[in-house]
């Protein structure tokens, strides 16, 4: 674990040609990084991840943009394969820290939709970026161990996506960003997605790797939903088994805004995903779905936050995990209702399926409720695959591995079925099938 940042944030800001406010923000984040300790077993959302965190090589050199670009045909094979099944209105491809390819349907461009790199947006839409960056995940946090990694990310990010949908614009087909990790680098990214009043968008970010090398990725995604905006957002991680993937996402939902979010972790050796929604206006609605599958010695750790500040809002978390071999799956989540968050409906469900003796699962669904006229509940369950169901399928002539596969697919079906990104859901289902079999 590193004690000093691997790069000087001020020099970084200069090198990347950033405005003064951003340089200051990076400086502030660096101060937080310096001041707070690394998370350990006592840091609540890191309770089970702290051990794995120790093995993350944060001392790899920081990935700096090299101004590369590629033609569509020369894109990494993993991306081309994904593009073949996807029906997208536009997408970005990042190879390491470089935005190597971008395309967006011209009619969307005409309507003022923006899909580009965050650094490009700093030049083309400086006010929008300044007003919204670090809003959902502040550069200067309150200053405890939980903030160590967000501080590192705020100080050192060198690339990421920027998406903007103007007021009233509805983007029909999904947009996407593919982040292809390279080996032996510390990759720090930041994504800002901004939906103006009553805008609509479906967007998927996919994290992949091209090689088998060890890489560290720290990614922060900020989602800003202005009143009445509706966003479908997916974050799908299918990286190689040598990767370390640390991801945090916060959404700010104003009045009547709606988010449907899907977090998927299938790859990486160690993946930590923290996904939160702040329900700031009445009528806001946040549905957070999660699917994860740890095999081999993988560790998939999830944290969700449903923070109800406003009354009359709704949130629902539905996370399902599978573990086999010596895989570890962790779910921790918190429903937090502030005083005054009356008439809230908030639910949280975590279901876990264990496929082998050495697999391990931790589940900690939490409630902190400070309002009384509310409907809140949570549930969690952990169970092995049902032997009777397996036996039944075997009696119908289905060999055991296929039967297992069917039952896992059935177990995850109701989450994936709730995602209105059909192609993506199919892709995820296929990767899972592969994992059950191998």
């Amino acid at each position, binding site marked *: 674990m590193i004690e000093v940042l691997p790069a000087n944030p001020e020099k970084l800001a200069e090198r990347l040609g950033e405005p003064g406010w951003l340089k200051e923000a990076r400086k502030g984040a660096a101060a937080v990084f310096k001041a707070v300790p690394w998370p350990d077993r*006592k840091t*609540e959302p890191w309770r089970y991840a702290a051990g794995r965190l120790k093995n993350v090589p944060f001392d790899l050199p920081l990935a700096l943009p090299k101004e590369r670009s590629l033609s569509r045909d020369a894109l990494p094979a993993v991306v081309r394969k994904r593009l073949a099944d996807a029906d997208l209105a536009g997408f970005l491809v990042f190879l390491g820290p470089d935005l190597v390819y971008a395309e967006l349907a011209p009619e969307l461009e005409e309507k003022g939709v923006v899909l580009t790199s965050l650094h490009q947006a700093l030049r083309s839409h400086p006010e929008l970026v300044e007003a919204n960056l670090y809003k959902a995940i502040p550069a200067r946090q309150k200053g405890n161990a939980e903030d160590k990694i967000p501080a590192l990310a705020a100080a050192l990010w060198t690339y990421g996506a920027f998406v903007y949908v103007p007021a009233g614009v509805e983007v029909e087909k999904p947009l996407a960003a593919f982040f292809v990790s390279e080996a032996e680098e510390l990759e720090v990214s930041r994504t800002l997605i901004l939906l103006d009043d009553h805008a609509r968008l479906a967007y998927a970010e996919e994290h992949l790797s091209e090689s088998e090398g060890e890489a560290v990725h720290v990614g922060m995604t900020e989602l800003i939903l202005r009143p009445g905006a509706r966003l479908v957002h997916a974050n799908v991680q299918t990286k190689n088994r040598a990767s370390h993937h640390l991801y945090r996402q916060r959404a700010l939902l104003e009045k009547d805004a709606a988010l449907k979010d899907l977090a998927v972790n299938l790859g990486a050796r160690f993946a930590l995903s923290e996904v939160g929604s702040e329900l700031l206006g009445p009528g806001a609605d946040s549905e957070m779905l999660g699917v994860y599958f740890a095999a081999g010695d993988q560790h998939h750790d999830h944290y969700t936050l449903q923070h109800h500040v406003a009354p009359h809002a709704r949130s629902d978390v539905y996370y399902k995990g599978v573990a086999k071999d010596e895989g570890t799956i962790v779910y921790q989540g918190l429903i937090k209702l502030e*005083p005054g968050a*009356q008439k809230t409906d908030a639910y949280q469900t975590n279901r*876990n399926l*264990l*496929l*082998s*003796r*050495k*697999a*391990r*699962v*931790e*589940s*900690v*669904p*939490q*409630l*902190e*409720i*400070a*309002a*009384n*006229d*509310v*409907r*809140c*509940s*949570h*549930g*969690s*369950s*952990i*169970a*092995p695959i049902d032997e009777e169901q397996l036996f039944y399928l075997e009696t119908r002539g289905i060999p055991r591995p296929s039967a297992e596969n069917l039952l896992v697919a059935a177990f995850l079906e109701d989450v994936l079925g709730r995602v209105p990104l059909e192609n993506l859901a199919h892709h995820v289902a296929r990767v899972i099938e592969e994992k059950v079999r191998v």
Partner: protein
Amino acid sequence: MPEDLKHIADDYRWGFRDEIEPEIALKGLTPETVKKISEAKGEPAWMTEFRLKALETFFKLPWPKWGPDLSELEKKLDEFYYYVKPPAKGPAESWDEVPEEIKKTYERLGIPEAEQKVLAGVGAQYDSEVVYHKVKEELERQGVIFVSIEEGLKEYEELFKKYFAKLVPPTDNKFAALNSAVWSGGSFVYVPPGVEVEVPLQAYFRVNTAGFGQFERTLIIVDEGAKVHYIEGCTAPLYTTEALHTGVIEIYVHKNAHSRYTTIQNWPTNMYNLVTQRAVVEEGGYHMWLDGNLGSKVTMKYPSTILKGRGARSEVLSIAFAKTGQHLDTGAKLIHQAEDTSGRIVSKSISKGEGRASYRGLVKVSPRADRAKANVECDALLIDPESKTDTYPYMEIENETAQIGHEATVSRLADDQIFYLETRGLSEDEAAALIVRGFLEPVTKELPLEFAVELNRLIELEMEGSVG
């Protein structure tokens, strides 16, 4: 909290007043205090050593960074009396000096006068003494040991030493360390193999106890195939000005033995109640914790069962009622260490006014515990808009064959339910009390009858004027 109870907690000054000098009163937490406690009790050297080491451990261990705010307690730690040996006669208070409000509360709870006097600390326990002697004769005939913890150490040192602090060592947590250093009072119970104790053993039957211990230490050993139910505390408010209670309860449930530990606390609302309760259950054994928390300013209590032997079972039923000024952080732990072990936790909490009730629990299944089963159910009822509730259930599962479930709900006292009951002729208060009683019923039905009756009356009192 109804006015009459609040006054008692705030105003009533009980305990040792200047004109009644206790024989020994030790203030401040120092090795000298600890040595003197041990000396006053005439303990063997190993126990003095144990206490002194525990005190060191207490100072070394950090204050918990989670849960309720203990910063005030930390500041006034040296102001407490850690040992008070009453004069031989006992505090010569008279029943007439007990404030009218308390008497009224007792009357409304329907507690017999003799028992009222015991609770208020002024009664020689005339009636219960008679009962006790009968119980005692019967117990002795069966070979059951039921004595004060001090007597246990003195009379049964070998047995005592074999079990004492093995389940909850001083290093377990800061307050277990504190208790280990200054413990005083509590029970020592041994039930021989195959013996079934018919009547519940109640702490207040034991006349030789020096009141209700602030640092009580209880050790219960239920030998193979034996059966016992131990009851501690009571639903009626207890009066003391001391603001710190840290108990340690250790229970050993041997093969095929059956045990129950029922405790209801209703400490005044200036009390920090920090208790470690743990049971270990061997093959085929069963243990139930029934835990009710009504009083105190802060409670931190998580009765735990270690399911050590194959087929061991445990249930934890818990009730918390938090009113303004109270933070009750309670829960349960089930540690599955063997095959076919099973457990169930049912937690019901009510928050009223600005009260805060938190459930904090752990279900842990170790790799050996094939086919472990556990089910956790936590329900919270919120009475007022300012009421708070939290749920922090930890599940750590390292065995594929485990079947674990957790469900929690949060609901409010529903207007339509109250309205419905009003249309059937109930007053608003009666309706609210009825709903609350119904909510608690899955736990209260397991209580001994007299406890259940008292608890229900208490809830009626608490719910008066709480709606509308």
